[in-house]
């Protein structure tokens, strides 16, 4: 088994006085697609933000490529090859689509070129001169994903990429993600849409009350569906 690309252990985090992560442990190996599952408020988004260095008060260990990053600022973590597509998408309204795409600086080789990104999401090419604030929800999500493909970051974290989108768009985003895997990207997803995630992910972690409480490989899913339904309350 290869060395993990990302190793999270004993991760704790606080929003002001409220303690939201109580010791999260999991790992992501190079080239894998891993999905964090769990109900609302389980701590999935907070976990991604901690890895990105965006939560002020965090403790424990987050090792990326063997290096401890728990105390690094978010710009330094980004420079090491971690990228986040946030839940709220974070498309900059005062920037054009192209400016949004070109905003994150290139940190390494191996990212997609602008042409490859336009092949993946043709809508973005048509709208390249539109302001970010004028995009539809689906276009915003495509832009938010596309934006982190260019930089050469190896670990892409996507927070709820299908939330609130039409089925046709969800399908298109799924296709795009499938094309990323053979390019050597490693993906960490947070997703409520379990059916959609099950077609993409190699492994799943289930979170509850700020902890990881269970883990499955994709192949183990059929035998564990009852358990999973109980966890997720679906």
């Amino acid at each position, binding site marked *: 088994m290869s060395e993990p690309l990302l190793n999270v252990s004993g991760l704790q985090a606080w929003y002001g006085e409220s303690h939201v992560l109580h010791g999260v442990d999991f790992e992501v190996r190079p080239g894998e697609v891993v999905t964090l599952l769990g109900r609302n408020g389980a701590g999935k988004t907070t976990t991604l933000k901690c890895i990105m260095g965006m939560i002020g008060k965090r403790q424990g260990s987050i090792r990326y490529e063997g290096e401890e990053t728990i105390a690094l600022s978010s710009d330094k973590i*980004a420079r090491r090859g971690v990228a986040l597509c946030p839940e709220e998408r974070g498309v900059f309204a005062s920037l054009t689509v192209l400016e949004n795409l070109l*905003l994150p600086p290139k940190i390494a080789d191996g990212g997609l070129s602008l042409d490859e990104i336009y092949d993946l999401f043709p809508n973005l090419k048509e709208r390249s001169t539109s302001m970010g604030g004028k995009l539809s929800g689906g276009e915003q999500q495509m832009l938010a994903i596309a934006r982190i493909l260019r930089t050469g970051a190896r670990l892409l974290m996507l927070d709820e990429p299908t939330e609130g989108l039409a089925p046709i768009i969800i399908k298109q985003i799924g296709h795009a993600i499938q094309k990323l895997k053979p390019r050597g990207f490693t993906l960490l997803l947070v997703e409520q849409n379990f059916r959609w995630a099950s077609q993409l992910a190699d492994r799943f972690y289930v979170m509850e009350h700020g902890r990881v409480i269970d883990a499955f490989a994709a192949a183990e899913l059929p035998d564990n569906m009852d358990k999973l339904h109980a966890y997720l309350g679906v």
Partner: protein
Amino acid sequence: MIPLLGISTQALFGQLLLGLINGAFYAMLSLGLAVIFGMLNIVNFAHGALYMVGAFAAWFLLTYFHIGYWPALILAPLGVALFGMVIERTMLKRLAGLDHIYGLLLTFGLALIIQGVFQNQFGASGQPYPLPEQLKGGTNLGFMYLPTYRAWAVVFSLCVCLFTWFMIEKTRLGSVLRAATENPELTRAFGINVPRLITLTYGFGVGLAALAGVLAAPIYQVRPLMGADFIIVVFAVVVIGGMGSILGAIGAGFMLGIVEGLTKVFYPQAANIVVFVIMVAVLLVKPTGLFGKKL
């Protein structure tokens, strides 16, 4: 001379030019304030004081080092920008995320200290700063006499404003700046060193103020309180243009300078308050300012 509505054209154009010059300074100062407010969320009350320091820096350079106007136009803003960046790093940085009032109080206190030190040293009266050799004299346009330096001040300030606008709206650096203004946390998570960008932005904003100060030195006297008198009107200009709006700051600056000038011709008694009357009217009708989008 042909009188117009009982006013001689000489007086009309003379005041219009004066208004335009004031407008040029309003525009440069409010532009710096707008850039700083957008990025740091701080209402920089030290702006007027730093404008004054810019003018004094030019005067120092000339008096003690015999360095003239043209080098001062570059050196003084650079020096003040450096001073501003030290202020940002050592003081303003600690106020990030706190209420506006803290930044306002700190910069207001700084303004009082800076002005106090200069007043203690140089008294309230002004030091004259000579016109640069190349810009002496003027041209008779037939309907009015146009002093060369004043024409230069207006044109130069307009160029600086348009250059700044271009940098912010049309370049890669500008897109990073706009992104960091909109969502600093996320911009930082893309690998951009936002704290450094904030320091540089503050340096740039106060550098603009100092540049306006050097430009003003040969027109107005170099006085410790030259900025304090000016900055109150400039804040009104920023509010009218819309907090944080680049084009708003430039447009409102020139426009209000001209309106002020025209008021001096047609109803001189109101000249000192016309900007504030407009501010009240704009706030009542469009609280975000003429060009403002958000607060």
